[in-house]
């Protein structure tokens, strides 16, 4: 029961919301749509669900074209960012509602709701109304309702975004377990790269209505296909700088240079280097020194995030431990250029070694 998008696009008037997209999600897979707000994640999901009709292309499910099939006939579940429950029903009735629609016998409804509540750790709340629950419990109820029926497709649209930080961490930890034994297609939208990484599965990186990259989450993170994908998948934001390659050397506008990797053709590039490869201490023999004026130093106790400007170009460094810096002072940072990405004029990643370099 794979979900296939064939050339699916969405235009509203002259605005292109989703550029024609091809994607295949295998049965039993956990798929993440990663992108900023307005990248098109929700629109794409709604087209997968049948809540919106694509203006071009077809949606196939389990080998059938379901493009025009109404959402009621598709066996889809959806969880939203807002905690959506029936306010006048108890938690039990909320979870039971899709089963009642399916006219299951009362006995079976009771067992399945009981099991699901157990899994979601809301067994003690079954008699309460949603308004008497905490935000996390309300969202668990909404999720339980989505998962209690055997849907073929489960769509989760930033389900943890409105939860407290710690609660989000806990639920993120539990989520993959909930889907582990199902054979359905799960699609999960998020704006946070760390969340995507920890959830694993496969990631489709989205930018301005386009899927710019798709593959196993860790691979996309380590080998982004291009500039946009690398930007979407970096938190804190990736450092970008213009560079030119000439006679075997890479030169930055800031006057920094290092020996170019083999196979890097002469020309103009954009280099991308993630903040944790820019450090106040030398990390590798291939580190180059970038000197800059410290703008802000954020010390978290375990890490230091230093924002500095080198020749008016902003850089961010992220390192272990506490490295106090006085703002306004000049300081030296070491960028490990063996970990840097080279993007050509079109924003494509330049593949330097067939073995694939570890980011």
């Amino acid at each position, binding site marked *: 029961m794979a979900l296939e998008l064939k050339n699916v696009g969405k235009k509203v008037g002259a605005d292109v919301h989703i550029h024609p997209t091809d994607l295949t999600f295998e049965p039993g897979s956990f798929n993440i749509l990663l992108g900023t707000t307005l990248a098109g994640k929700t629109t794409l999901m709604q087209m997968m669900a049948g809540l919106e009709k694509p203006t071009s292309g077809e949606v196939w499910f389990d080998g059938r074209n379901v493009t025009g099939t109404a959402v009621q006939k598709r066996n889809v579940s959806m969880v939203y960012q807002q905690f959506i429950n029936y306010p006048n029903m108890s938690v039990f009735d909320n979870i039971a509602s899709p089963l009642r629609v399916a006219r299951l016998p009362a006995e079976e409804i009771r067992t399945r709701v009981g099991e699901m509540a157990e899994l979601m750790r809301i067994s003690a709340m079954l008699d309460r109304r949603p308004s008497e629950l905490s935000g996390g419990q309300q969202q668990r109820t909404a999720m339980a309702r989505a998962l209690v029926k055997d849907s073929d497709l489960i769509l989760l649209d930033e389900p943890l975004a409105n939860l407290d930080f*710690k609660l989000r961490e806990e639920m993120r930890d539990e989520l993959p377990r909930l889907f582990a034994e199902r054979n359905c297609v799960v699609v999960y939208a998020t704006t946070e*790269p760390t969340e995507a990484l920890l959830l694993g599965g496969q990631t489709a990186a989205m930018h301005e209505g386009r899927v710019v990259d798709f593959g196993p989450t860790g691979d996309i993170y380590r080998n982004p296909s291009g500039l946009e994908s690398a930007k979407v998948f970096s*938190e804190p934001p990736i450092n970008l700088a213009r560079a030119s390659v000439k006679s075997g050397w890479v030169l930055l506008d800031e006057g920094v240079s290092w020996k170019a990797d083999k196979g890097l053709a002469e020309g103009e590039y954009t280099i991308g280097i*993630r903040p944790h490869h820019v450090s106040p201490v030398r990390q590798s023999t291939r580190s180059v020194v970038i000197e800059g004026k410290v703008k802000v130093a954020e*010390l978290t*106790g*375990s890490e230091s995030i230093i924002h500095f400007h080198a020749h008016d170009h902003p850089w961010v460094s992220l390192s272990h431990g506490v490295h106090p810096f006085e*703002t306004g002072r000049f300081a030296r940072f070491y960028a490990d250029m063996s970990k840097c990405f080279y993007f050509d004029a079109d924003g494509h990643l330049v593949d330097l070694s067939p073995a694939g370099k*570890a980011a």
Partner: protein
Amino acid sequence: MARITLKNLKHAYMPNPVNDEDWALKELNLDWDDGGAYALLGPSGCGKTTLLNLISGLLTPSHGSILFDDHDVTRLPPEQRKIAQVFQFPVVYDTMTVYDNLAFPLRNRGVDETTVNKRVLEVAEMNDLTATLGNRASGLTADGKQKISLGRGLVRTDVNAILFDEPLTVIDPHLKFQLRSKLKELHTRVPNTMIYVTHDQTEAITFADKVVVMNVGEVVQVGTPKELFEEPHHTFVGHFIGSPGMNVLACEVKNGHAYIAGKKIATANKAVAKAGKSEIGVRPEFVKFARQGLEARVVKVSDAGRFSVVETDSAGGRVRLLVEEGGAIPSETARLEFDPAATRIYSNGWLAGREGRP
């Protein structure tokens, strides 16, 4: 600009509080230095918003007093306390331009237009609003609107403190990072006392010089981010700050030392003989795979990019540790070593030898 002192401050929303649980905010004594950047951190319902509203004057405490520079303001309404506040949802005056929004608090106070103009331009420059000064405020994005709300506080020269109530809630994640460092940068440029309320540990510890951690109506620890990270005074602080939080393992105590499954664990502090629950707390950052140490079984490995979070099962319970990108991870059974300087004994939740509230 003022030093803020909270004296025996307590608050209950009900008229006659009897039990401990009736107090939304339990008794509290705190001193906040003039010009400091503070954060109130805790989960929903911990009383942090109550405390913020008491400081701003939107609530009057049922007990105790609030002093700004030794001047009692407990019964003063918000407008007389000279504070500024940035709310969770951006508040801008829709029909006004950005310029008029920034000028509003000054004009209300009868400041002459030359001064208004000077202040507005200064603040707009600090907040990167110069280019949009002539635009209608309603057309701006959420982060732009929050900068205006903040700007309305910054234009005033009489402000005792600027309060932030979860100001990044409606901001896009990729802009959160920028706005967060902007706030930090602003604090280095203006001498105001700033108080930032949030449930997000990252926001709290990156913004504040000192973080006040709260849980169920009481302050659990006040400290610099480094102190909170390195020496949590309560297992709650250890859990709440850090992602993933501190590992808390059940242990036995003999002669002041901690034992897990009969094996002695080296710790930085000694337990005081006392009945009750004893636990060992150690952050994932200070746990390593080693030849010797606590026996454990690897249960789950999550790739977080620059490191992996490895979850293991041991005799003391679940232990998580961080392994650098590319580091070796044993496939099944392993032994764990805790850094003794960062491993501590907690009795009944509180750091042993340091029991009692701050």
